[in-house]
């Protein structure tokens, strides 16, 4: 894919990110960060793609390590977000 094509995607995603995150209430900034952690675990796709090529032990090992750490991020991030969000009970008074 043309690099300019990818950079255009990047630019558009910047705006999507900015406008969606601006809306997040400050009270939820901690869960926002842990959800971000979880979804940044999407690099696991990169790790899996590099699995396909096999150029020696170091290459494979690196791919699997990346896979493992990204998985920790994904599951840890989502689980801890869920745990935090469970604590925010819906407001009764307001």
């Amino acid at each position: 894919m043309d690099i300019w094509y990818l950079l255009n995607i990047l630019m558009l995603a910047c705006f999507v990110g900015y406008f969606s995150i601006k809306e997040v209430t400050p009270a939820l900034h901690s869960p926002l960060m842990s959800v971000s952690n979880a979804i940044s675990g999407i690099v696991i796709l990169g790790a899996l793609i590099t699995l396909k090529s096999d150029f020696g032990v170091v290459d494979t090992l690196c791919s699997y390590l990346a896979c493992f750490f990204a998985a920790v991020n994904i599951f840890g991030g989502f689980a801890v977000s869920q745990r935090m969000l469970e604590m925010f009970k819906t407001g009764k008074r307001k």
Partner: protein
Amino acid sequence: MINFFVNTSYLIASTCMILAIKMLATPQTARRGNLVGIMGMFWAIVAALVSLKLDNYWLPIAVILSGAVVGVFMALRVQITALPQMIAILNGLGGLAAVFIAISEVLSKSQNDVSNIMSLIIGGITFSGSIIAFGKLNFPRWSKSISFAHQNLVNLLLSLVVLGFAFGYVLQDHVEAFYALALMAMVMGILLILPVGGADIPVIIAFLNACSGWAGVCVGLSLQSPVLIVIGTIVGTGGSFLAYTMTRALNRSLLNILIGGMAAPNSAKNADEPKIANVGSPADAAFLMENAGKIIIVPGFGMAAAHAQHALKNMADVLRNKYQVDVKFAIHPVAGRMPGHMNVLLAEANVDYGDVFELDDINGEFQDTDVAYVIGANDITNPQAKTNPNSPIYGMPILDVAKAKTVFFVKRSLGTGYSNVENPLFFASNTFMLYGDAAHITEEIVKYLEA
């Protein structure tokens, strides 16, 4: 056919994850948002596995599952007060994953060298920086700003060497240069975060969060994967936005925070007029609170350190139910050790989030407040930020607790805050200091209130 399935799944996955962030906007939808995010991630992983067309799926699945076990175990075991440490670790692992992907890419001779080098450098800085941030959060002794002579010069030289090596790698294609680059990036990360002081950590946590996202973007550029670019960018802009909000709440720049510490405060303390702070007792506090119409509680890092949130919730309940007092919580954006830290702790203690207010929403209310109960916070209430242009914290938005009729400060001692700036509020005639452990003092007050 498989291609169609994989690409559609990626599209669905990025949609789900954008929706997940969007649904975090309010607590009502946030939990569902998290589930939508999980669904999106599940699709993405399944699609990626399918696209590999491997003969044997056991190993990758086993690796992912073992990561899952470790992650979920960490998430369920971590203490709510240790959440900032957990976030720091997760930021770091995101960076580390990017580093390993970059190395694997280099070994398999991919073409996109520049973005790959970028993901190596950013990933390395994120990893080592997060480890230092974790240390600063976990071990109080590390939390002071640590710096040495000519640190900025060393940093500058190191960045130049890193740039040199990066170009050298592009030109020469030495794998060894690439490993050296990874090591140097990690040293850079360490040097970058060491000078940061404890109270600036919220900015750094958000900054490293952003870095882990940008590292993902670089991986995406080098692998030409739009999903990685989109999601990485969203994490990157999110972290950057949070870091920016935090720096604004401190009235400082990111550069200033990374260089470290505060400008040395003008030590010309008026030694000629010894100041005396009023010392109150829990009984006094309880008496004034019983007869108050409106109380605002201002929590800071001290509340987290003393695990005082449950006692506070208890106090607020007794005041409301027994004495019909209007009790509210006021939260400064940089209170605590990560963005939203105080909100999570109060939520843990079952404080209704409708009772918790942000700086701009509540600051006008202090003037008709009878009692402000400041628990483990200092700089974020210091009027010098408004009145003294020479103060290092001048210009930082503060909570106007000084306008309340009576102010109680719960502190361990009459020390200056992190910024080392004296708080004139301690010596005001309507301020009373309650010395001691935040949780213990609050429990004492509850005892008097219930009596």
